[in-house]
């Protein structure tokens, strides 16, 4: 029971999806920062 509770993840189905979200968000941030750099320079 305890293990099942521990395995349940909020919002996403697996840890792999969580890792993909974190890395994906980093890539999005870098792209957004690149566009900001271009816009304001």
């Amino acid at each position, binding site marked *: 029971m305890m293990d099942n509770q521990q395995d349940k993840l909020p919002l996403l189905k697996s840890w792999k999806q969580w890792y993909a979200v974190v890395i994906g968000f980093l890539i999005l*941030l870098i792209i957004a*920062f690149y566009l900001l750099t271009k816009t304001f320079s």
Partner: protein
Amino acid sequence: MTVIDWIVIVATLLSIVVYGLYKSRTTKNLEGYFLSNRNMPWYLVLLSIMGTQASAITFLSAPGQAYSDGMRFVQYYFGLPIAMVVICITFVPIYNRLKVYTAYEYLENRFDIKTRTLTSFLFLLQRGLSTGISIYAPSIILSSLFGWDILWTNIVMGGLLIIYTVSGGARAVAYTQKLQLIIIFIAMFLAGYTVVHLLPSSVSFVDALSVSGKMGKMNIITSGVTEKGFNWNDRYNIWSGVIGGFFLALSYFGTDQSQVGRYLTAQNNRESKLGLLMNGLVKIPMQFFILSIGVLVFAFYQFNHSPISFNSALVAEANTSQYKDSVQLLQHGFDSINQIKSAKTISFIQAEKEKNIAHQNALSADLKLLNQQTEAYRTKFKEIGKKVSDKDTNDTNYVFLSFVKDYLPIGLKGLLIAIIFLAAWGSIAAALNSLASSTMIDFHKRFSARESSLSEYHTSKLYTLVWGIFCILIAQFAHRLGNSLIETVNILGSLFYGVILGIFLVAFYLKNVKGTATFIAALIVEVFVVFLFFNEQISFLKFLPDISFLWLNAIGALGVMLVSLCIQPMIKQKNRRAEALLSPSYSK
């Protein structure tokens, strides 16, 4: 400073101490004191991780960094989310499965006692010194700007938090960090709003960014490539940020007990991982926000009079020195250029609104030239400053607080000063807790006779107190040695981090490599990293490339892995020979 500002400061600081004492109830054993009985939810783990990493100097230095060097400092954090993922996959499950109290306990399990003790000792040495400096660094800025006595500033900066850290251990540290971060973010948001509000009425937030951008402050992404190729000595670019920053974050979050101790307080694997992954999501936007305030402050000073140095105590000292005539001449020239700059900036905004590109480009070129001229005046003043005083001539860390002192309204000024103390307390409290846990678990408990749980609990409290006093003494000692010590200790930290990480990476990923090979590899690579850093000072090492300190983490970590892989077969061969010599068949 008005009475209201003082009331805000005292009330904020006392409320944190009282709240910390209120949250001090914990089980009187080591697990209760150091790991809060491993019952923390992910959001408290997240806030504790963030509160530990963000020290006072983060909130003082980052806006100043953006003011002087632009937004590119944010790239320093690009490796952090990747490191969070690797730590969740590798480090967290092992630490939680073995139910360790410190990261270094695992090294004895995997290698031997000598590797564990060496790594723990290096941690204590480095963290003890750097915590002392993290008390001194904001204290010297506050005492310089407000004329406070450095001893008492050090005592408040590093002393009051000892009350609740000794009393409540990891639980009190985590709960106070939560409250501290909430207050810090509210205050920083108000500060950012006030900067925009203080801009001329015709200048919007986007206009401010546009002016700063034209002056090169919106350089968020930089490649580090120059006409001569890639500059390895360039500190902040996308490559050093992603690669060097990854190894630095992996080392800091995966092997530094001040961080490992935070996510070991989590209820289970899931809560530890969620806390770390959320940190990977919010850290970069948070730093971006803090740096943006620095860029807005830069824009503000394009329309308003900026001081020739943001370290006002240095300016006062220079004005009463034998160089006072030269200083006044510099001041006069600097003020004249500032006036022209202010008028040209208003015209630039106007040209931008009218979409008059030719006029806009001409004004942009003029503004760049004027900024170069003001920088030249500031450099000349720094040269005089070095001759007349031992005070810090590099005023980057003074920019934000100087702005707070001169322009923020009553009450908010007090709150902003209070958050400098709160940010310092968050990181220092976690450091004291981790220093005490390493001393207790890796040395006291490991090498002395068994004690009762209650006795261990009281000894742990004593160690926390002793480390607290030690760090304040270091802060006081640092004052006598001058400002260069801050830089020296920061560099010393980066010299050791890579090698410590390398030891852990060998432990996790190179199963065939044993303790002795790792130990020897760590010593060899440590010497190489030190030589690499000091290559310019040592004549016979000048052939080595001149590289930024961020790369040393990667070199140290990968170096230990490679060298240990090479040494392990030699040790195996040597052992086989020794076994053959001692075997009965050989004796016959």
